[in-house]
């Protein structure tokens, strides 16, 4: 377990980390409310409880680094600086959505913010992140690809292919396993041969086993700084297991009732935002300053909700566009 030395993280960075975590939390809570109003169709996977990982990494990344996220990708998208309105509008299937309503909750992408996609087939984006890292290595740009995935991903073949590939080519990619203890509706330890799903596999690829408290934004930030520097220095990939817990179920349809009450209570007591707030107060940050951040974020969520709801439904021009690089969808003459 990596320990934190909080003093190393500057106050400005820590306030930014707090703001990001609060934004992710309030956004996801609003997204959940909008599901209940049936304004978000289809499925959706919230990051409530896992905000510290997205916030910690985003704070440590260079603006031209790349994020590869999963279908549980709202937090990772917002953490890179994508405004709330287009993200929320995408969830609502509106024309002003991040992808004009064509991707939906599970595929959030904003190339201009380095969010190179959210991938909804388990494991797929690990080799894709390798490709981006290869491109950075080839062109000498010192960019790093950071690839987030859940604990369930370690048991699919693409994980193994990607980790081996990244190791043999010494690629600048950081693999981040968000171990939220549950693989959809099944306890991860019931279906995984090792206790630490990612860390205990690291030696198979010649990598160090790194485990971090994923509910501690400072700890995540520090681990991220080290892994990113290692990648930029040409020393190859890292595999980081961030221990965390999702406060809700796997997806919209899942109340998460299979989890023991005492387990949920124990993890709620380790809520990353509650902990971080207390830590900032201990460090001398004024209550009023934190309240101001919370208030500003609340206003931002309100504005985004209004703007997203005001978006029109996408039309036929969206439907038939951008299959091909020429902007169209024609397959014949």
């Amino acid at each position, binding site marked *: 377990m990596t320990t934190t030395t909080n003093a190393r993280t500057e106050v400005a960075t820590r306030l930014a980390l707090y703001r990001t975590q609060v934004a992710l939390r309030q956004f996801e809570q609003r997204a959940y409310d909008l599901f209940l109003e049936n304004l978000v169709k289809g499925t959706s996977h919230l990051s409530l409880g896992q905000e510290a990982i997205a916030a910690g990494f985003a704070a440590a990344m260079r603006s031209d680094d*790349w994020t590869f996220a999963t279908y549980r990708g709202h937090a990772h998208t917002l953490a890179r600086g994508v405004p709330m309105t287009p993200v929320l509008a995408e969830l609502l299937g509106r024309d002003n959505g991040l*992808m*004009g309503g*064509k*991707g939906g909750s599970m*595929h959030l*992408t*904003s*190339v201009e913010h380095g969010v*190179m*996609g959210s*991938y909804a*087939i388990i*494991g*797929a*984006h*690990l*080799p*894709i*992140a*390798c*490709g*981006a*890292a*290869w*491109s*950075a290595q*080839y*062109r000498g740009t010192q*960019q790093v*690809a950071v690839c987030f995935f859940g604990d369930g991903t370690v048991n699919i*073949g*693409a994980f193994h*292919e*990607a980790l*081996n*590939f990244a190791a*043999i*080519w010494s690629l600048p990619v950081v693999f981040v396993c968000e171990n939220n203890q549950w693989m959809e509706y099944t306890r991860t330890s019931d279906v995984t041969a090792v206790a630490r799903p990612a860390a205990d596999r690291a030696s198979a690829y010649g990598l160090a086993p790194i485990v971090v408290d994923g509910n501690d934004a400072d700890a995540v930030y520090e681990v991220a700084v080290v892994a990113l520097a290692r990648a930029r220095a040409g020393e190859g990939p890292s595999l980081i297991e961030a221990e965390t817990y999702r406060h809700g179920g796997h997806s919209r349809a899942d109340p998460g009732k299979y989890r023991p009450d005492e387990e949920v209570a124990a993890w709620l007591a380790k809520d990353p935002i509650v902990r971080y707030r207390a830590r900032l107060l201990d460090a001398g940050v004024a209550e009023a300053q934190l309240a101001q951040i919370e208030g500003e974020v609340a206003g931002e969520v309100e504005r985004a909700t209004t703007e997203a709801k005001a978006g029109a439904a996408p039309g036929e021009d*969206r439907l038939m*566009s*951008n*299959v*091909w*690089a*020429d*902007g169209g*969808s*024609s*397959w*014949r*003459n």
Partner: protein
Amino acid sequence: MAQLTFREAIARGIAQEMRRDDSVVLLGEDVAAAGGVFKGTVGLLEEFGPRRVRDTPISEQAILGAAMGAAMTGLRPIAEIMFSDFFAVCWDILANEIAKSRYMTDGQLTFPLVVRSGNGGGLRFGAQHSQSVENWAMMIPGLKVVVPSTPADVVGLLAAAVRDDDPVVFLEAKALYPTKGDVPEGEVVDTLGTARVLRSGSDATLVALGLMVPRALAAAAELAESGVDCTVIDVRSLVPLDTATILREVTATGRLFTVEENPRLCGWGAEVASIVADEVFYDLDGPIVRITTPHIPLPAADALEDLAIPSVERIVTTVAKSMNA
């Protein structure tokens, strides 16, 4: 004009593009030091070095994933999947990720990549190393599908595929690797989505692809001796599909025969037949006939494989019987 084998044309086409553009890179199993298991990439490591020509592990998802990630961030990778049958182990990356991500992101991402693969039968490799999978790729929106039948087309269409900003599945008929043909000197660049009329006749139009093209031509020569004068079209590109050429030639002869190596159901010829029936039905003088491999896994024994894949003899017999009915 140089005479090259089909396999030499692969290396020639890749080298032409790699010399022109430093963002073109090649990866795959045994493509570098070994020059490819089918010897399609001989000499490329020596000319371009290990930075641009890279051997990979037996990891097809990693190969195509790496190609995708590289393509979306500025490179123009050429990925080799040794046998197209292996698409089945990396189909998620090809069908779900590469094909759909441009659309899903409403154009934010672009994937200028080529997936080359040895395709089809004739080498007695049995059911898992002989399939004609062009229809697998054709049915996925977002993939272009190109199938050359001559060394000159290999160079020109490969160049066009590399320069195209969309993902192109480039299928090389394995049985054609040793065949020879003239390739013009200098840079050769073709156009995707263009069929080629190889022979003009007045009685029937044979539309063929890949390995079936030389067989359709040989069949047409035999049929001419018995008084059936055939047009032969090499489709060359399934997506985009040159329907204009096909419709024009079918209208001129009044008859359509597709010659397909793939198993019967949902072969590319079914789509061609549907388009012809929809759009030029009243110009037809007789039924549309599809000549295909039966709907079976391919057997290994030479005698059985030869029975399965459309032969010159089967094409001749089928066309003659239908024309005389």
